[in-house]
């Protein structure tokens, strides 16, 4: 089978390198029965579009961030809860284990099979005013967040003003003070040059949202059990590569932003931030009471 794949990242990015490895390994392991072609840089559309494409069968596989998966597979909204994981290691434990299987099952009901989980790092707050060490520091500041009410509420719970804004507008807006800050991982903070406009990077690690390597259920079901196993193994192997490259990339980016004059500060009292998220969780559980046990289970992993 000839498979078309969607990937938003550019050439040379850890995810792109890993996906290329996945394509090569899977083709070799299935003796050419699965041939994959990856379209990088989001040339086939945005992620919500690509999710629809994989469901309809226009593309066969993809590397999705789990954030925008929420509107389609409601269970995965959990992954967008701030401070869900205490760190990247816990995220790996959960996603490579029972939690990942549960998300996969939920996604399969919507026609998407999750084979392996990639990193997209941990997102932290950065701004142009001051280092943030406690929630109260956020008060009165305007932060750009991604298009999700949860993130608006997250900044709101700290007393700030969460503003969804197109990613391409963020740099100018930081520079001119339209917003005071934004939130992202090191590599984005560095490659977008946001560190030039917002010097204070505070390691809040409030969001650790994994990415998946997914295959369309329709394409998946056409494979023999052996080929499925081979493709899955190739995907899992590529996840190891991606996580290693990602960690290297994060380190390099941190060095670059610090050399570029950014001030990075640790956040000693993360519990204070977690406590501040209480209303966000309460609100979320009010709307999704059936997910309470699963959230507890993930937090205990």
């Amino acid at each position: 089978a000839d498979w078309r794949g969607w990937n938003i990242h550019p050439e040379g990015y850890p995810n792109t390198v890993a996906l290329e490895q996945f394509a090569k390994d899977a083709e070799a392991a299935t003796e050419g029965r699965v041939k994959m072609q990856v379209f990088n840089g989001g040339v086939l559309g945005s992620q919500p579009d690509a999710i629809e494409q994989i469901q309809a069968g226009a593309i066969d596989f993809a590397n999705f961030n789990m954030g925008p998966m929420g509107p389609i597979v409601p269970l995965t909204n959990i992954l967008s809860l701030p401070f869900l994981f205490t760190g990247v290691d816990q995220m790996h434990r959960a996603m490579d284990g029972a939690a990942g299987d549960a998300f996969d099952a939920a996604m399969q009901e919507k026609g998407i099979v999750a084979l392996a989980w990639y990193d997209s790092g941990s997102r932290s707050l950065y701004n142009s005013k001051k280092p943030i060490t406690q929630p109260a520091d956020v008060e009165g500041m305007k932060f750009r967040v991604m298009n999700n009410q949860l993130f608006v509420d997250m900044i709101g719970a700290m007393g700030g003003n969460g503003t969804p804004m197109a990613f391409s507008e963020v740099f100018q807006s930081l520079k001119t003070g339209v917003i005071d800050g934004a939130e992202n991982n090191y590599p984005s903070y560095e490659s977008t040059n946001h560190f030039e406009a917002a010097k204070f990077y505070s390691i809040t690690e409030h969001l650790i949202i994994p990415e998946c390597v997914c295959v369309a259920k329709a394409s998946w079901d056409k494979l023999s059990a052996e080929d499925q196993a081979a493709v899955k193994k190739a995907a899992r192997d590529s996840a190891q590569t991606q996580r290693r490259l990602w960690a290297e990339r994060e380190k390099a980016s941190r060095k670059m932003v610090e050399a570029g004059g950014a001030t990075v500060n640790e956040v000693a009292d993360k519990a204070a931030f977690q406590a501040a998220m209480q209303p966000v969780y309460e609100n979320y559980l009010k709307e999704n009471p059936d997910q309470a046990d699963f959230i507890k289970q993930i937090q205990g992993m």
Partner: protein
Amino acid sequence: MGLMLLFGLFALGLFMGAPVAFALAFASVVTFAFEGLPLQIAFQRFSSGVSVFSLLAIPFFIFAGELMLQGGIATRLVRLAAAAVGSIRGGLGTVNVTASMFFGGISGSAVADTSALGSILIPVMKEKGYDADYAVNVTVTSSIAGIVIPPSHNMILYTVAAGGGISISSLFIAGIVPGVLMCLFLAVAAYAVAVKRNYPAEDFPGWQALLIAFLVSIPGLLTAVIIVGGTLSGIMTVTESGAFGAIYAVIVTAFVYRELTWEGFKRAVLNAVTTTSMVMILVAAANAFAFLLTIYRVPEQLTMLLQFVSDNPIVILLMLNLILLMLGMIMDMAALILITTPIFLPVATQLGMDPVQFGIMLMMNLGLGLCTPPVGSCLFVGCVIGGIGIEKAVRTMWPFYLAILVALLLVTYVPAISMTLPNMLT
């Protein structure tokens, strides 16, 4: 095979005279079916193509341009230009070019420029003894300033067609020098022809009158300051600036100039809807078309082909310009921006050209196409206003084409003309 079907059906639709957007859409949908791709996804490309934040600026710019016309801003700009440069030999030709430069700084569209300034100036010029062909020639060619001088909704189309990643601020600011340069060349051509045909000069109305004309124009010119300034300073996004500019234009024309009637307002809204939907349906169709081009890896193949033909950047750029000029003669600008950008931009960047510079080159090149037969919307509008046939207008247009071509070649081969300002900005 699928690629041949795509282009074949598109060409067939065009030759039958189907609307460009529908020919494009129909060819794409059939090719989706041929490739076994779900048709639903073709229509997803349609709606996502239109549902783009920065494209929201397009209806705003178009609406603001309509208000300029309905509410007396254009008239005041022409009066200002007339007071400033009318006393030159063949003054109304130079006035026409100068007014286009001002108006271009507010309107984002060449057709709006032609219809606004043409309907004010062409009758006056004819009355003063200028030949209709000359009046039409100057009006039509100088209207390209509306595209090259910011703001320009065609530049927004270009950034979207390029797949994001090009800063609209850089593109806006990059257009200023080439736009002014082009107007300068056009003014020289207008002057030369005027001298040859012995056209009159107007009386200089005096410094006081010039000052008054300037002061009266300020509220209108501020629209440009709001839209361009808001964007360049980064205080607002280009979309927000466009909306603010539109609101401001309503206020100025209705309450300061007091010329905007309820009828005029309605006309502006409906005209804006008509133009917006014409442009945006092209965006929608081109988005499905581009999806197929991507799947067929067309840009990569074309780059390879061109490199096979020649490895001399000067030759390749000349070829690109020639192809674009020929396409521009037979098709409209918006459609061509959307179709050719994904194909030609990778070729240009491969040669080391900055996407911003390529964008300005594309604007001027396709802008010229708006003034040429057989398909040129500015030429058509200008000829209707001037009441002359297209052949008659085109026969004497060559000095003006030449002026634009010289500017185009300079922009193509001298990066500094377009890139100096944006490089200073960042």
